[in-house]
């Protein structure tokens, strides 16, 4: 009789231990599982962002590549050029055009458009205008005045993530910041 009771108690203890182990292991397992998926998604998304920035820089650099085109590249055109590439890779994240001066940090994009939005921004930097050089100084004057303008394309904002708070403390839950940019010279024909 006493032996049966001891066996039952032992079985109950084993079951309790299994439940406790499961309660500890299951959330850890799920966290690791989603983190792995998240890491893979991050790899795909960051790769898409790098390619989009590169393509955006090409689009922006050639915006005035015809003798008729002398205007600065527009952010809308660049966004239209890369949005397809970005949308197919960014899961649960929307892509917007940033028309004002480029945001300083991903947080600025979130403040304007809300969470899980990346913005495409374009900024052209014109060289100083050429003037008549002082005597003895070779043209073109001042230095760099004959350069074609530089154009910077940035993709900045927050992309969606499965595991809050993503890979680091201080980041917004369910989001990973992204800030990638490229600067190149534009192709301009002489007016």
């Amino acid at each position, binding site marked *: 009789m006493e032996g049966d009771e001891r066996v039952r108690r032992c079985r109950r203890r084993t079951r309790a231990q299994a439940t406790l182990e499961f309660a500890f292991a299951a959330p850890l397992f799920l966290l690791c599982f989603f983190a792995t998926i998240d890491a893979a998604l991050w790899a795909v998304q960051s790769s898409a962002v790098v390619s989009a920035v*590169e393509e955006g820089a090409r689009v922006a650099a050639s915006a005035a590549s015809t003798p008729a085109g002398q205007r600065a590249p527009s952010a809308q055109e660049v966004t239209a050029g890369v949005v397809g590439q970005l949308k197919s890779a960014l899961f649960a994240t929307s892509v917007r055009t940033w028309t004002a001066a480029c945001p300083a940090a991903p947080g600025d994009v979130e403040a304007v458009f809300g969470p899980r939005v990346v913005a495409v921004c374009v900024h052209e930097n014109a060289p100083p205008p050429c003037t008549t050089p002082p005597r003895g100084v070779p043209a073109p004057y001042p230095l760099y005045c004959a350069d074609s303008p530089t154009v910077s394309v940035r993709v900045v904002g927050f992309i969606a993530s499965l595991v809050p708070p993503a890979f680091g403390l201080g980041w917004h839950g369910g989001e990973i910041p992204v800030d990638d940019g490229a600067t190149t010279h534009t192709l301009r024909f002489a007016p």
Partner: protein
Amino acid sequence: MTRRRSGGSAQAILETALVIPLMLLLISNFLALMVQVSVQEQMDSAVSLAAESRFQAPEAAHDSSGARCCPDPRCCNRASDASSLNTSGLPTGCRFAAETFYGTMPFERFLIWHPAPLCLTGGDSGASGQARTGVPYRDSPRDSHLSCVIGSTDPNGTVHRGFLDHALNPPFGLYVVTCDATATLDFSRTPLAWGVFWSPTIHAHAEAVPPPFRQ
């Protein structure tokens, strides 16, 4: 019974002590691999845009005295920048390539760059596999993170050839612009240092074919 129970918990502690460091080691190396792939992508992109940007400058344009390329193109009007590269007398295309590279590549502190001459001329892919490397321009800075073979015509009318790629337009080949960058990822400068014991060297190479109006 009590002895058996304490034996069981000792075993659990031992298993945890073995498994957790191993798991953390695996995770750190996985993260390091992701960082490597990400840096490689960014370097490929920066080098590729740099090679193409050479064609935004006229073939015969050369930088006048005092011209410099700053690591950040937005500060290039400040000639006093100590870390800038002196591009006086070099083809303007070399500066354009460098400005594009420095303006695109994020410079992380765990990257150890391999310095090289900024601007070279010549070089050949070799019709029979005997490749030749380019020769640096006389005034080229030697400590650039980017190295490009760029053809130009200098103010005296001397033609400096680009890199002759025999794989294009056979059997004559085609003069192209090539750019290269090499860096070593030093994980000892990152929080992953405790578990990542490898320092891979990554290299990016890009070739740009002249646009139709330049061929």
